[in-house]
Structures are given as C-alpha cells and as structure tokens.
C-alpha cells in the first residue's frame, strides 16, 4: 500500500457532525456522500430522459394526435427529443449511476479503504458533472432549441446550423459532453488509484470483489478511449464557432473522420456502462444463491478480454458508411468474437445458480432479470456484427431494440438490483419487499413488451429516427407494433412509481437495518449501516476472497473476508 497518498482520514475531522450542512452534504469529500450525489443527479436526469421517451413513444404510436399533457410534437422537436433522450440516458443517467454512484460508494469500502485516493478530486468530478448537466438542461431553453442531430451527432448534420436550424443548442451539447468527459476522466483516475493502491492488508488482486474488477476495467477502458472523441468534439466546436472545416468536404474535411472518432470511443463506452452493471449482478447472485461465484478467474480474465476487444470493433457501426468495404470482414470477426467473453461471464452467473440455495428476493430478481434480458441483447448483437446482415439491419429499429436490450438490463435491472441490495447499507433502513417485487414484475414484463415488437418493426424494414412511418406503403402494416410498444412503455414508466414510493417511504419509515442483513462477505457489510467517515475504525485484514458461501465445515454459511480463520471454522480451522 502506498502511504504517500493522503486519504480522507488525514483530511476530514473524525467528528463529522461538527461540520456545517454545506460541508457535510453539499461540498462533502466523503465518497459515500458524493456517491449519493451522483445517484441523485442520475435519478433527476432519468426523470427527464425517461419522460422524453413517453413523448417519443406516443408520437410513434399515434402520430396524428396531440400528446396528452404536452401538446403536438413537430419533426424538428422529435429529432431534438431522440437526441436528448440518448445523450441523457447514456452520459447522464447510466454513467453517473453505475460509475459515479455505485463505483464511488463501493470501491473504497470493498477494498478496505477509508475514502477515495483523492477525495477533493472526487468532489471536483461530481461538481464538473453537475455543471455539465446544467449546461445540457440549459440547451433546452436557448433559441432554436436543443441539439437535434442524434446522440451520435453525425457530421455534417451537426456541423452547420444550416442543416438542422439548431444554433447554440448543439454548441451547448458539445460543451456538456466535454465537461462530462472531463468529470469521468478525473473519476476514472481516482477509481484506478484507489482500487490498486489503497487495498487493505491481505486484499490481493485475486481477492478483489468482482464489482471492483469490473469498475476498474471500465475506468481503464474509458480513460483509453475518450481522448480521440475529446479531440473530435473540439474540432466540431471549432467548425461550428470558428469557421474551421475539419468535417466539411468542400474545405478538405471528411465526415467519416467524426464517425471513426465517435465510435472509437462510442463502442468501448458501451462496455464502460455494461461492466459495472454486470459487476452488481455478479455481487448479488452469489449472496442470494449462497454459492461462490462460478469461475472467479474466468470472469476476471473475460472482463479484461472484453475490455481489450472493445477497442478493435468500432467500425462495425460503419459497415455501410462508405469506408473501404474490405475493412468490414475483419471488424465482423472481432465484433462477433466479443460473444465469447460475455458468454463466459453470463454462463458463470447461470452456473453459480446450479446447486444453490436460492432466495428470490428483489435484488436477486433484478439481477436474474438482467441476465435473462441481456441474453437477448447479446444474441441480437451477432446479427448486427455480421457485416452482411448489417446491410439490412443497420439504422433500423432492430438496432434500437438491440441496444435497449443491452443497456436497459445493465443500467436498470443492474442498477435496481444494486439499489435494493445496498440501500440498507447506504441508509441504515430496509426497503419494502412487496413493493419491490411488484416493481420488478411490472418492469420486467413491460420492458419486454416495449422492445420485442420493435425488433419486428426493424425486421420489417423501418428506419429508426423517423417521425412517423405512414408515408411508407411498405411500413404501414408495422404501425400496430408501435402501438403495443407505446402502451407497454407507458406501463413501464408508471411501473416505476412503486419504486419511487418505496424509496421515499423506506428512507423515512423503513425498519432499521443491521450491519449485514443479507449475510454477505464483502467488507462493506462489516461496518455500520450507514458507514461512518472515515469508513473503518481500524484497517480491516482480509483472509480470503469475497465468495466463500456454504463452505463445508464452516460455522456459518458465509465467511466474511475479514473473519479470522479460527473464528470461521472453530477449532478445526486453527489446525488447518
């Protein structure tokens, strides 16, 4: 362990109740408070991003009607809505929740550290993201509206105000993304240093909880991939404001440059979001199956393999873009090969269930629901990864359904599994299980009813991002599928009410939680609920990995990582 790094223990006074409200809750340097700030921001942005999906879905189902509670939506508004929906959901909901929220809360606790390596940098990361969010929200209110060139911001559409009519909205979109990237760059460095250097005594790399492994891999992938897009975004901003022509063919620029830079980051970004979501599922499943995770090392190596492969697949987004067609087949091979590490991770989760003693409590339901639905996202990716089939599927609703089936399971099923699982630790209170089960079943069923019809819409040939499909004779018959999807989407949105009610009720009135309500092994369960700051009274000592459940001859069916061997096995353990 490095002693050169000042931890929060050195910086923060032990008696934090002496701090004022501002220092304690707003400009806190406690990683747990910052994590809750990330989660709150993510939830607020999800209200906007999720709410926009109501407008999008209504427009697609009943294009001739005015949207109840909103009014009519024109084609230009529609393009702005889909742009902001995608941008908000990927960059301002998924990343703040899974990296900023769960990563920040859990990495220090799980490795046995008192705080992040750089607590003030951590606060700066959050407030940079907060500023980015404010800039993005502000873009709704500038003249000519927010960005309307898709969340991928393809040039030249996003490059000249002439093409969309959007002026400052697009500039603010670029600035918001740049700030967001800066925030997660700082966050990523912090994650890495904390996860590698602040590990407590005995916490070897191969004893790290999988969530930490997956968060760290995500951080590395982000750090290595975001640079090119930052350069790309600066060139885009210069094109728009300074009259340069990096992306304008008549001035020597090239539109495909942006696509390469965007997807060189954009595809790894999928894994930046997916890996922490899987990390949550990988933590929840062993606890509720009372079994060690099946093949810990396989999962670790597959994670690293997926992270590496993610850097050499980006051009599968560009098979029909006009790039040299000879590039397609090599990128098909690498893309389809990604199925192997992810298959290993998913099979490991399923194999963990075999012979288990499974309790289908709400965190477990959400984790398994995530596995069940991600499988659909995974297998449909093979169609898109095959360049030949992608000629047909590219840019259709099949793609929309596919990436919702990959991101929703990790962000929402994974995220909700994490909230139901760690809520007792975060707030010292239990959540209501009846409401949680209701929340799961409504979410699970309605989510599938939204996106399975959209696969069929895509197979039927409908392009995505179209305001209405009635102008196409060959697509008209797909309209009933859009209506089913919209009705299900409304149920899905309403289905989040039990969660919100549960959250508020449990925060105020939930029964008090003990330290370790789920009988789990990782270090965060060995401290108070909620943990104090700094986290540990004395630095814990780790004796084993995080998944020793149902060990024969052990006193209990779980052995926390910091439990001394003689306590775990009684007198026989000492002899061993």
């Amino acid at each position, binding site marked *: 362990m490095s002693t050169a790094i000042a931890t929060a223990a050195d910086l923060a006074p032990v008696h934090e109740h002496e701090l004022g409200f501002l220092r304690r809750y707003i400009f806190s340097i406690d990683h747990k408070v910052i994590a809750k700030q990330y989660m709150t921001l993510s939830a607020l942005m999800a209200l906007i991003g999720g709410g926009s999906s109501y407008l999008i879905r209504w427009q697609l189902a009943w294009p001739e009607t005015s949207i109840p509670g909103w009014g009519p939506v024109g*084609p230009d508004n529609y*393009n702005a809505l889909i742009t902001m929906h995608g941008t908000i959901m990927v960059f301002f909901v998924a990343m703040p929740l899974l990296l900023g929220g769960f990563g920040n809360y859990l990495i220090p606790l799980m490795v046995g550290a008192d705080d992040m390596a750089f607590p003030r940098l951590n606060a700066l990361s959050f407030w940079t993201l907060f500023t980015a969010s404010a800039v993005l929200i502000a873009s709704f209110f500038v003249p000519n509206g927010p960005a309307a060139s*898709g969340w991928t911001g*393809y*040039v030249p559409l996003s490059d000249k105000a002439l*093409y969309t009519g959007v002026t400052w909205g697009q500039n603010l979109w670029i600035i918001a993304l740049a700030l967001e990237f800066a925030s997660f760059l700082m966050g990523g460095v912090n994650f890495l240093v904390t996860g590698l250097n602040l590990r407590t005594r005995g916490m070897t790399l191969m004893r790290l909880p999988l969530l930490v492994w997956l968060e760290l891999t995500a951080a590395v992938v982000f750090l290595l991939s975001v640079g090119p897009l930052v350069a790309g975004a600066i060139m885009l901003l210069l094109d728009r404001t300074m009259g340069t022509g990096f992306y304008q*063919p008549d001035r020597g620029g090239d*539109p*495909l440059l942006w696509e390469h830079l965007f997807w060189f980051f954009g595809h790894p970004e999928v894994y930046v979001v997916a890996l922490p979501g899987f990390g949550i599922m990988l933590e929840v499943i062993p606890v509720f199956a*009372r*079994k*060690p995770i*099946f093949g*810990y*090392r396989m999962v670790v190596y597959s994670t690293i393999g997926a992270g590496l492969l993610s850097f050499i697949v980006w051009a599968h987004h560009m098979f*029909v*873009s006009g790039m040299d*067609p000879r590039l397609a*087949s090599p990128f098909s*091979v690498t893309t*389809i*090969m990604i*199925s192997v590490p992810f*298959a*290993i991770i*998913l*099979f*490991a989760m*399923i*194999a963990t269930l*075999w*012979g*288990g*003693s*499974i309790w289908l409590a709400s965190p477990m339901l959400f984790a*398994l629901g995530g596995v*069940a639905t991600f499988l*659909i996202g995974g297998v*449909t990716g*093979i*169609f898109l990864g*095959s*360049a*030949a*089939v992608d*000629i*047909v599927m*590219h*840019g259709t609703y099949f793609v929309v359904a596919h990436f919702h089936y990959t991101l929703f399971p990790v962000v929402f099923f994974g995220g909700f599994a994490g909230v139901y699982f760690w809520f007792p630790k975060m707030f010292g209170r239990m959540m209501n299980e009846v409401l949680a089960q209701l929340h799961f079943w409504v979410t699970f069923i309605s989510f599938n009813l939204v996106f399975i019809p959209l696969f*069929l819409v895509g*197979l*039927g*040939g409908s*392009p995505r991002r179209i305001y209405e*499909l009635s*102008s*196409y*004779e*060959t*697509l008209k018959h797909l309209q009933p599928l859009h209506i089913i999807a919209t009705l299900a989407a409304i149920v899905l949105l309403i289905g989040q009410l039990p969660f919100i009610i549960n959250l508020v009720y449990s925060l105020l009135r939930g029964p008090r939680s003990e330290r370790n309500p789920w009988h789990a092994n990782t270090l965060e369960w060995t401290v108070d609920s909620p943990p104090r700051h700094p986290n540990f009274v004395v630095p814990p000592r780790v004796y084993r990995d995080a998944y020793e459940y149902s060990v024969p001859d052990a006193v209990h069916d779980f052995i926390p990582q910091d439990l001394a061997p003689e306590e775990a096995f009684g007198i026989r353990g000492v002899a061993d």
Partner: protein
Amino acid sequence: MFQFDTVERSLSRFVTGAMARRAVCQSNPGCLSGTAGASSAKSLTGIRDVVGGLLPENVSSFGGEIDSVFRLILYVVGFFFVVAEILLIYFAAHYRRSRAKRALYSRGEKAREAAWVLVPAAVILMLDLGIDAAGHRAWALVKQNPPRSEVEVLVTAKQFNWNFTYVDKNGKQGSGNDLTLENELHVPVGKVVRMILTSEDVIHSFWVPNFRLKQDVVPGRKIVAWFKVTKPGTYEIACSELCGFGHYSMRGEVIVHPEAEYARWRAEASVGAPASR
C-alpha cells in the same frame, strides 16, 4: 466448403416433415399410401417461411444470400439463447432456498468444473467463425465485387430528396439523352444497375428494404453500389440516416419494368423531359 443451404434444407425437412405429414394426413387420408414425399417437399420451406414472413419480400439477386446468413445466425444464437434461458429459469426454480439443505460448495475453478462454461464458450467461438465465413461471402458479393453493369445512374441526395441522373457507361453525363428524375428511379428487371451515390449536404442512406440494399451517401465522396432486381414492381426507397427535420419523409421509389417496357419508357422520358442539368 460448408454448404449452409443444404444443411438447412435437410434440417428443415427433419424438423417439419413429420409435423406436416401428420397435418396433411388428417385432411387427406390417401396420403398414407405413398404421397408423403410431396407433403414433405411442401413443408421444406416451413422454417424459412416463418423467418421470411418477418422480413420484407426479397426481390434482388443477392438478397437471398443475406437472408440465408440471417437464418444461419438465427439458428445458432437461437439454440444458445433457448438453452441459456431454460437453464436460468430451471435453476432459479429448482434450487429455491430450503432451510434444511446447504448449497453445494463449488467454485468452478477446477478444470472439470470450468469445462461446463469453457467448452460451450469454445463451441461458440467455432460457430462465430462459421458465421464470419458465411457472412463474408455474402458481404463480398454485395459490396466488394460489383459485376459489369448494364444501367448506370448517378444518385444525388440532398435534404430531403433523391435525384437520379442516367449517365453513360463511363459515368459521364451529356451523351445527349441523359435525364434527371426526382425521387423516382426506373430500372429494367434482371439487369445489373450500377449507382454512383453522392450527397450535396449531409449524410443520407439509400435503403431499399426489398432489395436488401443499404448504402450511406456521403458528401464529398462518390460511393458505388449495385443491384439486380428479379421481379417487376414498385419498391420504396427510405432514407436511413438521420438527415434533418424532413428525414422521415425522404422517400423515393424504384420502378422496375419488364425489359421491353423499360426501353419504351426510356425513349418516351428522354423526349418528354429534357435534361434538367
């Protein structure tokens, strides 16, 4: 060389043959005396019909190749998907918590245990490479080796229209009877049509679902694409890359004529509508 079509046919016959024979026999008792061959031949297309029903009708010479790669992937991933979901649901239901019984202590680290995961993963890798090989053949056919063309068209996309200019074999205009049409492309059936696509403003994408043909149209580039239609009719062109507020209505039509009719149309159009540019 792996012949997917042959495998698929025998697989299809195996799976649906028995079912179809029983169905036919219910309505036609005579089938028991040796007409089963006919019903099995009829059922041969069973799986293909179901899959085909999800996609728009294919009318291009190469679309069938793409569709067969699609079905190959569907069978492969469908198998793994079904097995994985069944195991997931079965395990979750069968190994529910019972107080009396402790869970099995298995870490999956020993080679014999890990094989349960690694062997399927290795099989997936092999099948992946099979999918890659089949996909590469279809891709190369559509995108890499355009055949000698018989009709040449310059396609110019701009917000929110498709313009089609007929040009001579060298891709040059001005041969006297060249002609530009808006949102309407007339081609003869059974002839290779070569398009040179370019855009005047933003990126568009030329997408004809019935042809299984999609190609982005990029400003500053001249991208070549081709197709050969097997059935006369009118087929829709959709723009499949977000190109602005009129993107959803950037619709065109390909009108595929029988050969004689095309010649007649071409003669009349050239007289009636002189070159617009």
